[in-house]
């Protein structure tokens, strides 16, 4: 949501002589943002947004400070939201997400490199009509050959340019795909071996996106090294990358779609939050991700623009996998006691300054399978204590629980202080705990190996704008080794629902199945959902046109500079 809240806030502040709490501040921001959205950011009258902000200007360099260095620039073989925000400006999948709207529950799927697509009624074949006249940045034409080349790179082990890394990262997109056929020079058909309801949604996810790379580049540089020469079809062209310093993209003048306003974007990795804020204040960057919650108010006071989700729609969940093999945690009463003992609301409002919502279910928002009305386990210390007593631990656990987390990382917010908060809350019901924090990339590796014996929970942040995410996090078939049910949760009823949802082609019915599964999962209390991020971004006052879409990425072709 684009929020021009500085003025609104100034007005509010003159009414309330006292200092606004951040909570009120952000509510105010949300309210203005909501109004702006209704006024016309979405749908029928997109020009309204421009009326509010003036006529877009061409040109200029937009510098964006990102919260960590990006992974490799192979759109099919990299993970992480930070990297995805770069990728999606260079590369495009067959279908894409419309990130120009903020008033939707889930970003609508729109034509990308495929002009249109059609699913056979049995869900076993998808026909994609490719957009004519599109070329990669190196001049290679996009045609059926190029599309098949790319998909084979991700899923066909017999293909010369098959890439294991790409296959691993895009596994959850192509797991039901049998083969890709070329129907005519501009048409391909993806043949599935079983129906997969979320197939198209998976195609646009950031964890191993399916953006198309120039086949000529892959042939020239090799399937492994092409990441150093990222050549796609997107609105921006790769210029250069200096590790830990910058990634530079220029406007693609021959882009087939809406051409970007800015001439150039520079992505600067600045892992220190304070350094990002300083650089913004000094005018060295235009736009920062993950501002420290405490700096938001002063930045807004100084005239900077805050953009934050005003409803719970960003596909993000900060949660803990409980170790279901642990004897202590096998007692559901203890798991439920833990759920009741954590003051998530306090964490959201106080520690995180209302930059998050307290989470209820495990399913992340930002997709149709998310149930906004679902609630369970209110903060209730008495009930938590009663459950502990019932489990025979009225005087507390005689054992220390061990939780693992990371020191930082994309979507992790303030992992250690948040875990400290939980530690403090658990102590109230007689559960002593220990926090082990690891560097993010190391931690992801540990996490994917599963929760080890002697560790009671692993904290993680994830979520997708596809309900299928719930499956790979909770389906017993995806328990480690494998991905990503690292706490080895298993409930046959849940599996049954998830498997039914997998093949269900009707969006509403499928969403309903996922909702039922989430409810069962939460009744088992095997995961502790803690908060959903509102993804705050702060930008200089002259950065205009930014849209806070319900996604962990954004579309910078909409942004222009008023300077």
């Amino acid at each position, binding site marked *: 949501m684009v929020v021009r809240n500085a003025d609104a806030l100034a007005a509010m502040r003159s009414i309330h002589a006292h200092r606004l709490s951040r909570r009120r501040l952000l509510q105010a921001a949300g309210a203005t943002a909501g109004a702006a959205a209704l006024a016309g950011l979405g749908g029928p009258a997109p020009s309204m947004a421009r009326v509010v902000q003036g006529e877009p200007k061409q040109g200029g360099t937009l510098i964006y400070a990102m919260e960590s260095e990006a992974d490799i620039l192979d759109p099919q073989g990299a993970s992480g939201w930070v990297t995805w925000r770069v990728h999606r400006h260079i590369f495009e999948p067959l279908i894409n997400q419309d990130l120009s709207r903020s008033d939707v529950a889930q970003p609508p799927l729109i034509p990308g490199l495929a002009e249109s697509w059609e699913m056979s009624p049995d869900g076993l074949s998808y026909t994609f009509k490719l957009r004519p006249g599109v070329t990669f940045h190196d001049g290679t034409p996009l045609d059926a050959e190029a599309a098949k080349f790319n998909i084979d790179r991700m899923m066909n082990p017999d293909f010369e340019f098959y890439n294991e890394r790409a296959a691993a990262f895009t596994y959850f997109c192509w797991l039901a795909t049998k083969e890709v056929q070329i129907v005519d020079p501009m048409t391909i058909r993806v043949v599935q071996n079983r129906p997969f309801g979320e197939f198209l949604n998976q195609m646009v996810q950031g964890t191993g996106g399916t953006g198309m790379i120039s086949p000529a580049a892959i042939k020239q540089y090799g399937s492994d090294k092409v990441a150093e020469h990222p050549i796609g079809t997107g609105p921006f062209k790769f210029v250069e990358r200096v590790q830990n310093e910058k990634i530079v993209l220029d406007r693609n003048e021959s882009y087939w779609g809406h051409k970007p306003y800015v001439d150039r974007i520079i992505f600067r990795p600045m892992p*220190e*939050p*304070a350094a990002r*804020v300083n650089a913004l*204040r000094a005018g060295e960057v235009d736009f920062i991700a993950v501002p*420290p919650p*405490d*700096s938001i*108010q*002063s930045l807004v006071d100084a005239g900077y623009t805050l953009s934050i989700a005003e409803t719970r729609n960003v596909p993000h969940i900060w949660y803990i996998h409980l170790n279901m093999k642990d004897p202590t945690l096998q007692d559901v009463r203890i798991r439920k006691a833990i759920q009741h003992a954590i003051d998530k609301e*306090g964490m959201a409002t*106080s*520690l995180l300054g209302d930059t998050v919502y307290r989470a209820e279910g495990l399913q992340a928002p930002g997709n149709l399978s998310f149930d906004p009305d679902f609630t369970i386990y209110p903060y209730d210390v008495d009930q938590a204590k009663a459950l502990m007593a019932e489990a025979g631990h009225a005087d507390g656990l005689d054992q220390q629980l061990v939780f693992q987390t990371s*020191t930082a990382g994309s979507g992790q917010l303030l992992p*250690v*202080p948040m875990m*400290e908060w939980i530690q*403090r809350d658990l102590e109230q019901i007689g559960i002593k705990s220990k*926090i082990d*924090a690891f*560097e993010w990339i190391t931690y992801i590796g540990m996490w994917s190996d599963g929760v080890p014996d002697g560790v009671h929970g692993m904290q993680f942040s994830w979520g997708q704008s596809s309900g299928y995410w719930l499956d790979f996090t909770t389906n017993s078939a995806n328990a480690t080794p494998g991905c990503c049910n690292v706490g080895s949760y298993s409930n046959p009823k849940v599996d049954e629902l998830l498997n039914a949802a997998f093949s269900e082609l009707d969006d509403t019915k499928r969403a309903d199945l996922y909702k039922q599964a989430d409810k069962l999962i939460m009744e088992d209390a095997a995961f502790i959902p803690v908060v959903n991020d509102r993804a705050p971004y702060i930008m200089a006052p002259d950065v205009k046109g930014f849209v806070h879409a319900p996604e962990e990425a954004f579309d910078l072709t909409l942004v222009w500079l008023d300077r």
Partner: protein
Amino acid sequence: MNASPDHSLSGPRIQPDTAPMALGGRVHQRSLWGQAWRAFRRDRIAVVALVLIVLIAVTAALAPVVSPYPPNQANNRLRLASIGTDGHPLGLDEQGRDILSRIIWGGRVSLPTALLPTAIAAVTSLVLGLAAGFYGGLLSGLIMRTMDVFFAFPVVILAIGIAGILGPSLTNVMLSLTIVLVPYITRIVYAATVEVGGRDYLEAARASGATAARQMFVHILPNVLPPLIVYSTTIAGLMVVYGSGLSFLGLGVQPPTADWGVMSSSGRDVLSVAPHISTIPGIMILVVALSFNLVGDGLRDALDPRSHIR
């Protein structure tokens, strides 16, 4: 490598480049220490610095008694409150914790982080340097050439490399600082031992039938200790800075434990809103490091006989 002992912050004057103390021999040993203490006492600034260090150390040691609040107790309502808040003279930090209490508790981490490595390195170096200077020959070559190799790594770079390989933890920071210090202090001890004629005493011991150990303890050690003490005191000041620096970078103690470096680092995000959170621990580090340097200077003047002459 060529890095001579005057690599230290305390300058070349601590090298016993002549051996007046050795010449003084046994007779003046006792009076030397007494004289040194009297000389040190006359250095007002050094005495104040010493008192300050002792005071801070004692306060830290008594933290459970004197600290107004537990270090991790948070008051959400008063987050970021500034200096002079009721009941919180130094204000509260970004988690709503009392800064004074955390400074006091932080001393229990920050001081040992600096002092333990210095002390352990001093003892290790004393043994290595004495052995090398006293026995000479192959042993000396082996020890000193090994030290040369360690010398090739810039201090913080080696420390961060070690901490990086072993993983972030307080123990690893202390271990790496110790490893970093040993070659520096060993050179001081070695130089002092050679200067007072370590080899000659070994010969003398052999000739007179006295044990080598006796020669070492009676004749050499008293002459080696002054430069060792002076150097170690000064280097402790630098270690306060570097130790907290490694914590600042997140390689040391893990939250929620308080430590001046971590405290300074955690206030960075709110530097413009609540500058006191970063500033107070920074000043604390400065004061303690400065005190160690002043005490080191005082000791140097008191223990170096030449400073009495001039």
